């Protein structure tokens, strides 16, 4: 795995769907953390993590194989593909020893689906009710929302590429609906 890549498709075995202009695949495992704290805690956490925690709503900040996604005024999702979770957590905790915060390892709670291709937005819009036009949902925007009845975090990686972070047990439900949606596109 390249060190600068956060999400990489997990080879042919994890391809959920491949069709003209459309590809959905599970990614290789990454480290994930739910971080809660005020602006001061977020500042220190970002410095220790290596990717600053964005203070702008719906923003994401990626630096090489690490990223911090704004989820709420005091909540972020931290992603990293270059080190095991324990090492990352130790680095952040060391910088926040005297600052109130919560840092929870949720690496195994979620998995990520890459939805790519010229029809990616249309496929997602079969179950995501947000406006995914580039003007309304530009590259780099990330948000918690709903995919049908499952809560997801949707992050636009490129004009035609999205990451869908979902709870692991909901993945078969989401993948099933994506397959069904692709049949009707």
């Amino acid at each position, binding site marked *: 795995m390249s060190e600068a890549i956060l999400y990489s498709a997990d080879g042919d075995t994890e391809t959920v769907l491949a069709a003209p202009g459309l590809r959905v695949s599970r990614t290789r495992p990454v480290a994930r953390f739910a971080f809660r704290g005020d602006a001061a805690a977020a500042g220190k956490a970002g410095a220790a993590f290596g990717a600053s925690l964005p203070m702008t*709503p*719906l923003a994401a900040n990626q630096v090489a194989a690490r990223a911090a996604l704004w*989820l*709420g*005024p005091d*909540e972020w999702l931290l992603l990293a593909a270059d080190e095991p979770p324990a090492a990352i957590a130790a680095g952040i905790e060391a910088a926040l020893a005297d600052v109130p915060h919560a840092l929870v390892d949720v690496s195994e709670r979620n998995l990520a689906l890459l939805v790519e291709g010229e029809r990616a937005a249309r496929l997602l819009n079969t179950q995501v*009710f*947000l406006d995914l036009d580039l003007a309304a949902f530009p590259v780099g925007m990330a*948000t*918690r*929302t*709903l995919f049908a009845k499952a*809560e997801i975090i949707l992050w636009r990686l490129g004009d035609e590429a999205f990451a869908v972070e979902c709870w692991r047990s909901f993945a078969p439900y989401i993948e099933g609906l994506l397959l069904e949606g692709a049949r009707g596109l």
Partner: protein
Amino acid sequence: MLLIQCPYCAVERPELEFRYGGEAHIARPESPSELTDEQWADFLYMRSNPKGVMAERWRHVHGCGRFFNALRDTVSDRFLAVYKAGEPRPAIEVSAPAAPNKETGR
């Protein structure tokens, strides 16, 4: 479906991302043990239920997760203002009944 502006995310999102939280600006009494049963029941159960503009709590549960307050016209379902928790109720002059906006059916 209603489109609701979240004051924290600063975007309009479909109603499905939100959860209703009842009437806003109802403070829990400081010393419940000093209240009569009637006063306590009044705090617990009695709500204004106006026909017209109402201040109410909403939570962006499938978004930023935050509670906020909104002024909604219960006749037209129109949202007149949204504001962050802790902020005072904005002064809104109640005008003639407005046509529902932000409606996309249902």
